[in-house]
């Protein structure tokens, strides 16, 4: 209550702040036209805005950060965003969450690749390693820290990640890379090749890659992933742009644990494919886009268990039957089709409007999930609108809402209000109030899991999951007060964010032996997040971030899923034109993943050295060493993260 009151007080103070301390903004002046950067196109609002005017906390991971990090997995990049936690359920299954509530099928983060949602409609979660996307093709990643349902609907609950790949025209020619470690864990063998070309107004890029390693020591969690992506960009008329993207990923992943008869060591096969078609029309100050996407995800994972003992009956009159077996099939197929129309329009110098709508159809088929062979559908319709009002050089108000209607939830809206006050040209103070919801996934709403156990005395159905069509969306109400500052002569940029949010109707899986999803819990999170970047010289850059949380939750497991503190500091140094050194230190307090064990605090240190052999062909060799401090438990105690060293050789022509 005290925290909320302080927010209202702060808002009041912003509104009453004397104008004498405010200096004229440079927006639109001749000198700004000469020396300012062109505004980024930010995910936070679908409007072209400079970072300081974003109606939410935004972190950018740009190409240079990606390259200097040296990481192989896309998920590992989010360690460079304040408040983000990355863990590995298994060596082939990274998990990303913001602040907490992290689990194998985390449902509270929206992830988009070039605007298409890659959220798994059946279970939730994101298949990070198996995404049909190569880290080399990423131009930048925009991360909105906080609810953003007003722009991207349900699931943009705790945070939104928008991964943006490069325009095909930027990748002319051929580029390749080979990555390899010694034979220690994980034994890494990666390769990547890309070809880009153009024909008149048409540019295309074809990229292919393979990623192989054997995961953690003594665990069957290897992966062999092959990816293929094609992108075509075309100019049709002077102001119309077409983009077509298709891609696929096929993988074989180690699963199972020795000594667990119902989770035997085995391999699953997963395939992910997509189509993304975008039309963009720029006419004066109006931009219209139409996007059609289709995402298909299939997992084949079925096996017969080893013999095990099973108790039949209701306690206390149970009978133990030995040597039972069961055919377990986790096979599942999901399809997501999405059609979206967006139009942004500048009404005058002070008002800008963005509005649009979308229709999404999710189809899931899985005997394991629904105990039948039929497709189960969810239709979701969305209308959204957002208006930006630039009152004067110092004040900016952004207000918007999304109306969403889904076949498994009632109609709801997710509004957001943002007030930004420029203080001079170096500081922007923002207040953001936002409400969002997280719709149940299909499994929570209409799942039914029944196994047939084979014993010497007959077959018995054993149900472990039942549907709950009374389940409600989870809700979040969030307030934040932020200050973004920039001191150009010193090369400093920083962002300080004070926040408080309350989540209600949090879903938990309850029941024994038959579980179901129920709205059981609530949590209140308050805290501060700081990011601080400085370019000390043209060749030395430092980035850092810290997140400190205070959590009050109705369930201890939920509370422990939020580490009290996390942070990072990274440095990148370029010297003698052809040498680069980068290092990064990450810290995460002790915590529990919702489906993992308690893990002690993590201290992780990575290092990268790169030598450019030939600047013209950009041929270079990199030495990357990760986890140089003590071994740590990743996600759960059995996953021991050791030091990993690997080499990468890359070039082009």
């Amino acid at each position, binding site marked *: 209550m005290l925290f909320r009151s302080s927010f209202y007080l702060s808002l009041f103070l912003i509104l009453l702040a004397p104008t004498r301390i405010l*200096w*004229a*903004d*440079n927006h*639109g*002046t*001749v*000198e*700004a*036209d*000469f*020396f*300012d*950067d*062109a*505004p980024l*196109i930010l995910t936070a609002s679908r409007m*072209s805005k400079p970072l300081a005017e974003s109606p939410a906390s935004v972190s950018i991971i740009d190409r240079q950060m990606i390259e200097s990090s040296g990481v192989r997995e896309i998920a590992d990049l989010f360690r460079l965003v304040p408040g983000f936690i990355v863990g590995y359920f298994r060596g082939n299954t990274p998990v990303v969450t913001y602040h907490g509530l992290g689990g194998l099928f985390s449902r509270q983060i929206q992830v988009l690749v070039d605007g298409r949602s890659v959220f798994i409609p059946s279970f939730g979660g994101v298949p990070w390693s198996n995404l049909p996307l190569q880290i080399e093709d990423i131009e930048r990643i925009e991360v909105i820290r906080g609810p953003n349902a007003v722009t991207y609907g349900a699931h943009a609950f705790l945070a939104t990640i928008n991964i943006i790949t490069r*325009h095909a*025209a*930027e*990748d*002319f*020619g051929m580029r390749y890379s080979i990555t390899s470690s010694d034979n220690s864990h994980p034994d890494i063998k990666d390769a990547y090749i890309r070809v880009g070309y*153009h024909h008149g*107004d048409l*540019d295309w890029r074809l990229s292919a890659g393979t990623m192989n390693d054997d995961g953690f020591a003594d665990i069957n969690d290897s992966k062999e992933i092959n990816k293929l992506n094609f992108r075509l*960009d*075309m*100019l049709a008329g*002077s*102001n119309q*742009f077409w983009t077509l993207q298709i891609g696929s990923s096929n993988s074989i992943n180690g699963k199972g644990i020795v000594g667990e008869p119902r989770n035997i060591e085995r391999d699953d096969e997963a395939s992910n494919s997509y189509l993304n078609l975008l039309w963009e029309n*720029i006419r*004066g*100050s109006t931009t219209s886009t139409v996007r059609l996407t289709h995402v298909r995800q299939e997992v084949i994972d079925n096996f017969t268990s080893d013999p095990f003992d099973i108790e039949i009956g209701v306690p206390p009159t149970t009978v133990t039957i030995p040597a039972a077996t069961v055919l377990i099939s986790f096979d599942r197929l999901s399809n997501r089709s999405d059609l979206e129309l967006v139009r942004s329009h*500048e009404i005058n110098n002070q008002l800008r409007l963005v509005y649009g709508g979308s229709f999404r159809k999710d189809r899931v088929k899985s005997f394991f999930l629904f105990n039948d062979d039929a497709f189960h559908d969810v239709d979701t319709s969305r209308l959204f609108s957002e208006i930006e009002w630039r009152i004067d050089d110092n004040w900016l108000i952004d207000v918007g809402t999304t109306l969403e209607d889904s076949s498994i939830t009632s109609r709801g809206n997710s509004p957001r209000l943002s007030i930004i006050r420029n203080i*001079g*040209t*170096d500081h922007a103070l923002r207040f953001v109030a936002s409400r969002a919801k997280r719709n149940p996934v299909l499994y929570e709403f209409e799942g039914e899991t029944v196994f047939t156990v084979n014993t010497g005395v007959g077959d018995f159905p054993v149900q472990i999951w039942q549907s709950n069509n009374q389940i409600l969306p989870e809700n979040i109400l969030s307030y934040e007060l932020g200050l973004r500052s*920039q*001191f*150009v*002569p*010193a*090369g400093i940029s920083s962002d300080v964010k004070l926040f408080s949010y309350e989540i209600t109707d949090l879903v938990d899986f309850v029941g024994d032996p038959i579980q179901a999803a129920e709205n059981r819990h609530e949590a209140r999170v308050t805290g501060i997040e700081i990011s601080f970047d400085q*370019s*000390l*010289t*043209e060749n030395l850059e430092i980035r850092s971030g810290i997140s400190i949380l205070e959590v009050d939750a109705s369930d201890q497991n939920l509370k422990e899923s939020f580490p009290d503190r996390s942070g990072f500091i990274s440095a990148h140094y370029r010297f003698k034109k052809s040498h680069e050194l980068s290092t990064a230190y990450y810290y995460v307090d002790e915590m529990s993943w919702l489906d993992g064990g308690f893990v002690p605090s993590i201290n992780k240190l990575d290092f990268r050295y790169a030598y450019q052999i030939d600047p*013209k062909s*950009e041929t270079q060799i990199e030495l990357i060493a990760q986890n140089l401090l003590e071994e740590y438990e990743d996600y759960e105690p059995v996953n021991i993260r050791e030091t990993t060293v690997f080499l990468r050789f890359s070039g082009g022509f």
Partner: protein
Amino acid sequence: MKGIYTARGNIGKLFGLLLFIVANVQAINADDRAIVIVKSSENAYFNQTIETLINHAEDHARFKILNSSNLDSTSDVLENANVIISLGADSASNISSRSPDQLVINAYVTLEQIAQFQHRNANNIAVLLNQPLERYLAFSHHLLNLKTLGLINRSSPALSSRQQKILRKLNLELNQYQLAETNKKLLATVRQLIRQNEALLMLPDQSIFNRDTLKGILLTTYRSRTPVISYSPGHVKSGALAAIYSSPTDIGKHLAKLINQHHEGTLNSNYKVIYAEYYSIATNQRVAHSLGLDLPGEEKLRQLIDETIR
């Protein structure tokens, strides 16, 4: 190659500047014949220019820094100034309206802005943000070895004899495309320009090149694999191939030179408009690589540009 311009420094320099400003504010009390710098607003470019100016001015020079919005309450400082330097159009216009007797140097202004000032004094000097067209032409030609170059403007002014001479010297054909009052046909004009020229030269005109039109222009040219040469290093970050411009440091150095000449009595203080003497170059190597271009080094480029427009 200097690379994309970003104002960089370090904390030490910032503190140094702050200390210097504090020290000079105190010094002003003892020396009313100071050089008064009037900023239109608070921003990093002005601060960097001031820092450079102070560092390059002769030791005995004394400075006082004011904000344009505070001029009414500090008019006595202006009256007692030795030289007045305005940074930005607002302060130039404000000072011009007061018709001061001292030498006034207006920086961070364009030719169009200077033309709008009602009260010109004989002792005004304007240091322009624009580069001379000759410099843009020489830079474009030597960067890409161009034969044809297109630019878009609201009116198509006749070229001076010097500009025509340089075009002949470079064997470069300059095509100007006139745009009506609105930007409705901007991209169509860009398309036409692309068909008829090897590169687009963007000259400073906020009504044509601004945050709303930039994306369309850059994408249109990029898709057609036509290089864009701009006046703004910010555009280079966004996807233009290169820019030639006078950085805040370049402007500061030029201002310091003028101040030193004034103190030595060698400055011709008759009203005149001059282009910034020093300039910087920014290139986007990623765009160059993507377009299959191998750009010459900055040193060689500077030598060729200076030889051409000498």
